[in-house]
């Protein structure tokens, strides 16, 4: 007997030295230099405390574990102890346990199956706060098994006499529906009843849950529209109104008649509310309605005008948040009612200069609708200034793709000077680290091919790029800007007649650094080196400059093999074919045979862009049956073989 008493005194004395949460935090802060070791020591202490019988001690240990979890320490090994603390009859300890469970339990926590009866007991406790913490915990760690086993208990709580419990139970039911969908059907009538609960908090919770359900499955909840309509016109609870109005925005695409009915009450709210959050959501939903309803409505234009007018007020506000949201909503209207938004062009363009990057990005989204022949160049100039000042590559890339988008939209509708556009593209190649190299290259090709008038200018720009290729080759792996060399090489090779100094360009293309470029670019180089050679050859043969031709040919024979060493198959193949051809040319030159015409014949004809649907327009030749077998029809013996195989496998 004395031994037991002594042990108890000894234990109590030891417990006096247990750190509580505050002590532990203080300790961690005082041990910044050896935090890892200190925490390891703390963990050991916690493990000892968890072995004690006294629940208060365990609870204290679990509180500390919660803090350590926030610092990235795994505490799932203590799951069983956490359950012990959860099962304490004392609220103080129980809530510590449930908090820890919410923090670290998940679907893979095996010991959770031990909790079902305990949680059920807590849910049905006469102490409201026991049930409260149980519900709060469940909302975080509910599993399919728990959902199935506790669905009825939680459903019953939806009718509790205490609004505090009703509110929480309703929110947990949503989690139950997610994990155990069979619960939805029996629970739904009760949930629907709660939409008319006398307590506004409970009502809100019901609206919240039904809105979430409806977002997942809008069709099934259209029938609730009248109930929500009534709530919308009678409630003064802004949170609830916002949820309902957002829900309507999601439902109107499915039921345009609903949309038509909404315009009036929403318009009234827009005029009457002083809550910006509500105003904004009303505008959003009105926009959604007007987009989904065909413009046969009489109040259509007036409603759009009202929205645009209100959004303008938001965008003009000094509050950056309102500006942001205003621009966000404007971009939705722009898609279907561009003219209404264009009236506010100046305001939107001024947002491009806002110091807030989020706002500039939203203004960029609206840009494609604000551009015209008159202002395109000015806008592009402004964007390029922004690009120079931009800090992040993501924002800069966004600007780049925007510039190209507005320039090329509707088939370059707003470009009045293509030479200007080519210079813009060339200037964009000075951007380091962009991921849009291919985009720029594509534009260069498109413009050079389709706009004959500026070909001369384009070719001279491309030749300069090839001359300065070493700058672009440098970071070829990380830097997609070298893609423009793909375009430059092709353009110079295809339109050689515009080159000022073809030889110099050819030499540039044969420089050894070129072999550092990505394979697909080198392949284009090889092909166009030949094209360029052929064009120079033709001219030289006419002029009878045999020595020049010999030197030129030898230069190719000397430099081309560098490409045949490439690990890229395409480059290898093209290089080998080219080298072979050059050897043949050398042989013929040795016999004084003119070769230019034959070589040129290899590259005869113009390459024009092909429309995507062009293939379909090609008529099928007479007598060709595309459905006929190409080979002989398989004989019956192979069919029998298949049957046998099927039998063996079944």
């Amino acid at each position, binding site marked *: 007997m004395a031994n037991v008493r002594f042990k108890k005194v000894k234990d109590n004395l030891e417990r006096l030295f247990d750190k509580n949460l505050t002590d532990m935090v203080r300790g961690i802060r005082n041990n910044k230099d050896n935090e890892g070791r200190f925490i390891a020591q703390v963990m050991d202490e916690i493990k000892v405390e968890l072995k004690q019988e006294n629940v208060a001690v365990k609870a204290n240990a679990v509180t500390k574990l919660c803090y350590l979890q926030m610092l990235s320490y795994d505490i799932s090994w203590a799951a069983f102890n956490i359950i012990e603390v959860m099962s304490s009859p004392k609220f103080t300890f129980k809530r510590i346990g449930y908090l820890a469970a919410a923090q670290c339990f998940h679907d893979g926590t095996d010991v959770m199956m031990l909790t079902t009866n305990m949680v059920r007991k807590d849910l049905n406790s006469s102490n409201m706060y026991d049930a409260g913490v149980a519900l709060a915990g469940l909302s975080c760690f509910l599993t399919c098994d728990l959902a199935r086993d506790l669905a009825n208990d939680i459903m019953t709580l939806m009718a509790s006499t205490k609004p505090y419990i009703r509110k929480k139970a309703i929110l947990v039911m949503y989690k139950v529906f997610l994990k155990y969908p069979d619960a939805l059907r029996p629970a739904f009538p009760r949930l629907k009843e709660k939409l008319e609960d006398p307590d506004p908090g409970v009502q809100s919770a019901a609206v919240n849950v039904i809105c979430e359900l409806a977002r997942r499955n809008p069709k099934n909840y259209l029938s609730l529209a009248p109930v929500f309509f009534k709530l919308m016109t009678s409630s003064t609870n802004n949170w609830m109104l916002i949820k309902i109005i957002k829900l309507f925005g999601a439902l109107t695409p499915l039921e345009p008649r609903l949309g038509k009915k909404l315009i009036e009450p929403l318009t009234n709210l827009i005029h009457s509310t002083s809550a910006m959050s509500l105003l904004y959501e009303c505008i959003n939903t009105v926009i959604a309605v007007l987009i989904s309803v065909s413009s046969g409505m009489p109040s259509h234009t007036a409603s759009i005008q009202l929205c645009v007018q209100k959004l303008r007020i938001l965008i003009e506000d000094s509050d*950056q948040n309102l500006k942001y949201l205003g621009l966000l909503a404007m971009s939705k209207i722009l898609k279907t009612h561009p003219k209404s938004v264009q009236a506010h062009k100046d305001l939107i363009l001024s947002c491009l200069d806002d110091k807030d990057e989020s706002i500039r990005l939203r203004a960029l989204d609206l840009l494609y609708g604000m551009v015209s022949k008159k202002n395109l160049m000015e806008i592009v100039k402004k964007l390029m200034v922004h690009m120079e000042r931009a800090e992040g590559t993501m924002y800069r890339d966004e600007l780049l793709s925007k510039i190209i988008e507005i320039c090329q939209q509707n088939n370059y509708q707003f470009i009045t000077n293509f030479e200007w556009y080519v210079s813009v593209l060339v200037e964009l190649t000075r951007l380091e680290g962009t991921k849009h190299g291919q985009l720029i290259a594509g534009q260069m090709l498109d413009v050079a091919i389709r706009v004959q008038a500026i070909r001369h200018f384009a070719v001279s720009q491309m030749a300069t790029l090839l001359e300065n290729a070493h700058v672009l080759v440098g970071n070829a792996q990380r830097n997609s800007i070298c893609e423009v060399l793909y375009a430059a090489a092709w353009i110079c090779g295809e339109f050689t007649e515009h080159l000022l100094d073809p030889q110099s360009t050819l030499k540039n293309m044969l420089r050894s650094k070129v072999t550092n470029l990505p394979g697909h670019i080198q392949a284009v180089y090889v092909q166009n080196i030949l094209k360029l050679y052929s064009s120079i050859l033709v001219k030289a043969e006419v002029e009878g400059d045999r020595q020049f031709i010999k030197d030129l040919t030898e230069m190719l024979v000397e430099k081309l093999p560098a490409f045949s060493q490439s690990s890229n198959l395409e480059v290898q193949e093209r290089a080998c074919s080219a080298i072979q051809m050059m050897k043949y040319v050398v042989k013929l030159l040795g016999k004084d045979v003119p070769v230019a015409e034959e070589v040129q014949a290899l590259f005869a004809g113009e390459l024009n862009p092909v429309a995507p649907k062009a293939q379909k327009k090609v008529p099928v030749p007479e007598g060709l049956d595309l459905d006929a077998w190409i080979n002989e029809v398989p004989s019956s013996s192979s069919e029998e073989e298949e049957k046998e195989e099927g039998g063996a496998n079944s």
Partner: protein
Amino acid sequence: MIKAILVFNNHGKPRLIKFFQYYSEETQQNIIRETFQLVSKRDDSVCNFLEGGSLIGGSDFKLIYRHYATLYFVFCVDSSESELGILDLIQVFVETLDKCFENVCELDLIFHVDKVQYILSEIVMGGMVLETNMNEIVTQIEAQNKLEKQEVSIN
């Protein structure tokens, strides 16, 4: 739905984290780090909405945050939540903390993060907004504090 609530200081140290979806501890820390990087480089004069990062973002998610002195309060939410509404809610959360701790400061969160979690659980539950009225929230918190005091005194 709210996907996560993060409170960290001007140096990125977490003061309260609440995830409403399971992530490993390592992922949680990466999310905190990434969120801090996104949010901390913004001036106090710009708007409080950000597209999310790559870890906790995704096309339907936004970061909505407020910066109070040394602390950032960040809510990661999907499109079912009202942006301005959530901003208001953050304000309610902070005002509630202020009421419960009497002129709350970062140290209160450092030493009493458990109490802060209990307060938060009266506002947001399972990623859904539970209560927005500050008086109602404080009433419930005070009742539970009283219950705790009673149990301690019995001991």
